[in-house]
């Protein structure tokens, strides 16, 4: 799958779309592929303040429970409630319908990579 050029990526295989001071988070296609079938997503509560790098959500595959780390600090303003009923959207559309949360950014971010940099990172 091509890695979208309009997103930024972390070394933990999360993606972030930054639009003004609003950031949308998800996990990369590489991450969902490695995890296998996602059967449960635990979403953060709206209003929660998270730090960059903090575990803000949990995805569970058939066999494993994995924390999802925030690419940027901020306050959670929206979560993808559709994942409660259809967690498989993280597998089928990791960069689109599989988004996890939106935050109002407060400044700090993890080290973020462009699509090209992330592609190189994956190949290393």
């Amino acid at each position, binding site marked *: 799958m091509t890695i979208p050029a309009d997103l930024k990526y972390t070394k933990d295989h999360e993606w972030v779309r930054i639009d003004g001071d609003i950031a949308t988070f998800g996990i990369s296609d590489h991450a969902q592929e490695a995890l*296998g079938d996602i059967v*449960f997503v635990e979403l953060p509560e709206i209003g929660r303040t998270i730090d960059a790098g903090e575990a803000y959500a*949990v995805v*569970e595959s*058939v066999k494993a*429970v994995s924390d999802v780390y925030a690419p940027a600090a901020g306050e959670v303003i929206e979560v993808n409630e559709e994942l*409660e009923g259809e967690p498989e959207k993280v*597998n089928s559309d990791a960069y689109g319908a599989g988004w996890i949360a939106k935050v109002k950014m407060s400044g700090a971010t993890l080290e973020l990579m462009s699509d090209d940099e992330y592609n190189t990172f994956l190949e290393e």
Partner: protein
Amino acid sequence: MNDLSKTPIFDEHVNLGGKMVPFAGFEMPVQYKNGALKEYTFVREGGAGIFDITHMGQVRVSGSEALPFLQYVTTNDVSKLVEGQVHYSALLNESGTFIDDITTYKISDSEYYLCINAANRLKDVAHLNGEAKAFEVNVSDESDDTTLLALQGAAAQAALQLLVDTDLEKIGYYKFAQLKVAGANAIVSRTGYTGEDGFEIYIPNAIAVDVWKQLLANGAEPIGLAARDMLRTEMGYALYGHEISDQVTPVEAKLMWITKLDKGDFIGKAAVEARRSEGPKQRLIAIKLTCRGIPREHYKVFAGGIETGEITSGMFSPMAGGVALAYVKPEDAEAGELSVEIRGKAVSAERTTLPFVRSNVRR
């Protein structure tokens, strides 16, 4: 990973997109390219799933005292087996706890065949050899020469029938036949670990890849360890290292139905009798979450808000939701108000009955 064994099917797994993981000393496929959920669904919804379970061990027991030997070292009543019949059984320590759970096949009055767990193989074989010294019996570990395939699901019989010269319809549940598969001697039993109709097929390594490919050509699809664990957990089948171990007796594990106290002496009998009269230290129960969440192994279980035990196997069941087996204090086994701690939060649960989903085995 260098010291891990490979089954004769290894290259086929890799070619089919198998994600190989260490398991009981082997490199085994946890899933193939379509993923565990699709594999699970294929088996539950009428397909023929093929599982490489060659990691499991096989021991042939022969000799004039094979019967008294097996009566002494296993828990079930071997005298009740007829030729061509299999039963579920166990090896216990003197303390009444499990060395392993096994299946015993009766080939003849003087020859039996045991299927044992991979992780316990060396321990089992050492134990059997030690006890065999007091009997006219030969114990032969044939694990390295034997490939074991399980073919499970409603379409299993049709997929296998094309490879064998015997009418599989004649093999009943927990019965087996010695027959030719792809021209080689094989044991085929109508047994399994999924709750579906199907077979377990013991063949020489030399024909393993040939049989594997023929079964795939007949419509079977490969199933990995992850789906296998889903299928067995939905049935509530015990797995060594989870529901049974050297820390529990058949009294706790709800396996008194394979522990025949009236058959004469056997290793662990006195301890099991004592435990039965004093009562189990914990009890195995089946629970189902009543809210969203996935109960997993080692998660704590609470009754009335007080910790009472922990989960031994838990899963997300596409058919039944969040379900688990758990050991709890005996006095809480009938408790109404149960919960499971998931990431620090109490998620409510209720007792339920096994199997978690309907079994389709052919009785």
